[in-house]
């Protein structure tokens, strides 16, 4: 009887010990996983949204499920940040070699007034033929800005069409399930993004 109780207690302690060790191990593994990315770990489930492609068709984020999406915002009349970022993403993409099919670069224009589908498409394809340019109605873009918690607005509207847009500059990395996981400042070195992608692919 006493021996049986002892065995019971010992096995209980053992089970408890194993449980604690595995939970700790899991947490350490998770933390390590987050730390070793070059981008800022920012895990968040994104609700689906839809925008318009060059043919005016609705395209939702869920369409790219199964691929890793590198997403950034801007507009084609942007002289400094947008071409620099897209140029960097072009280099990133060309460094993926045979993994290119698993990655989709998406550029969202926050200036639908001037970035009509054809113009946006021509702009984005200039950087890489596989890149996708999306924009939408004000309502559609409002949904997107809520999903990503971002801001954009017209700057210095002088009655003419030469206004500037304030827009987010970060690059967002969305995993194959459509979950946001990493965020990069616009000036992140290309090789850092390539490194993260190679880890995830």
């Amino acid at each position: 009887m006493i021996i049986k109780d002892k065995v019971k207690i010992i096995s209980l302690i053992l089970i408890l010990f194993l449980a604690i060790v595995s939970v700790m191990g899991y947490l350490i593994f998770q933390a390590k996983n987050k730390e070793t990315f070059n981008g800022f770990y920012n895990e968040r489930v994104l609700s689906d949204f839809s925008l318009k492609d060059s043919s005016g068709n609705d395209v939702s984020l869920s369409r790219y499920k199964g691929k890793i999406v590198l997403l950034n915002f801007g507009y084609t009349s942007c002289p400094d940040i947008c071409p620099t970022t897209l140029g960097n993403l072009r280099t990133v993409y060309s460094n993926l070699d045979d993994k290119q099919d698993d990655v989709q670069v998406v550029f969202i224009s926050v200036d639908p007034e001037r970035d009509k589908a054809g113009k946006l498409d021509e702009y984005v394809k200039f950087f890489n033929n596989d890149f996708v340019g999306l924009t939408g109605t004000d309502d559609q873009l409002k949904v997107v800005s809520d999903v990503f918690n971002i801001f954009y607005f017209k700057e210095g509207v002088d009655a003419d069409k030469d206004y500037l847009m304030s827009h987010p500059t970060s690059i967002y990395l969305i995993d194959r399930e459509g979950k946001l996981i990493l965020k990069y400042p616009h000036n992140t070195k290309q090789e850092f993004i390539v490194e993260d992608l190679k880890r995830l692919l």
Partner: protein
Amino acid sequence: MKYILFIFIALISCNREMNPGGIEITDAWIREAPPGATVAALYLEVKNNGPQDHILSISSPVSEIAEIHNTEISADGTARMVRLENVPVPTGEGLFFLPGGKHIMLIDLKKELTPGDNHEIILEFKNSGKKSVNAVVKGFSSNGYSSDPDHSMDH
């Protein structure tokens, strides 16, 4: 001895004439513009070995308008373009126009920007008057945030 001194003075004054006010503009380049783009960014460096000066205006046969802008990025990553006017060029300091910072926005492009081409840029200074410099068009392969665009090509 007198002769050497004369040459020396002549050389100095010659140099002065070529570089009045001590303003020097280097590393001028324009980023290639994607098709359909009506704007492009011009980057350069201004060195001032003379007294404090100001940039009054910039012009170029490339575009209708050229404005100095600064890209200000807030903590949440939102970029705002702020137009700068009468930009000071302090003595002994370099004024850098670089990607993601101060840049010259060329608005309403009149010419196609082909990598390798050179275009004249004219900067007008308050004290030093007009200065002309050639800016080379660089393609997207020479991209990056390096302070020296020539070297960023090697990486």
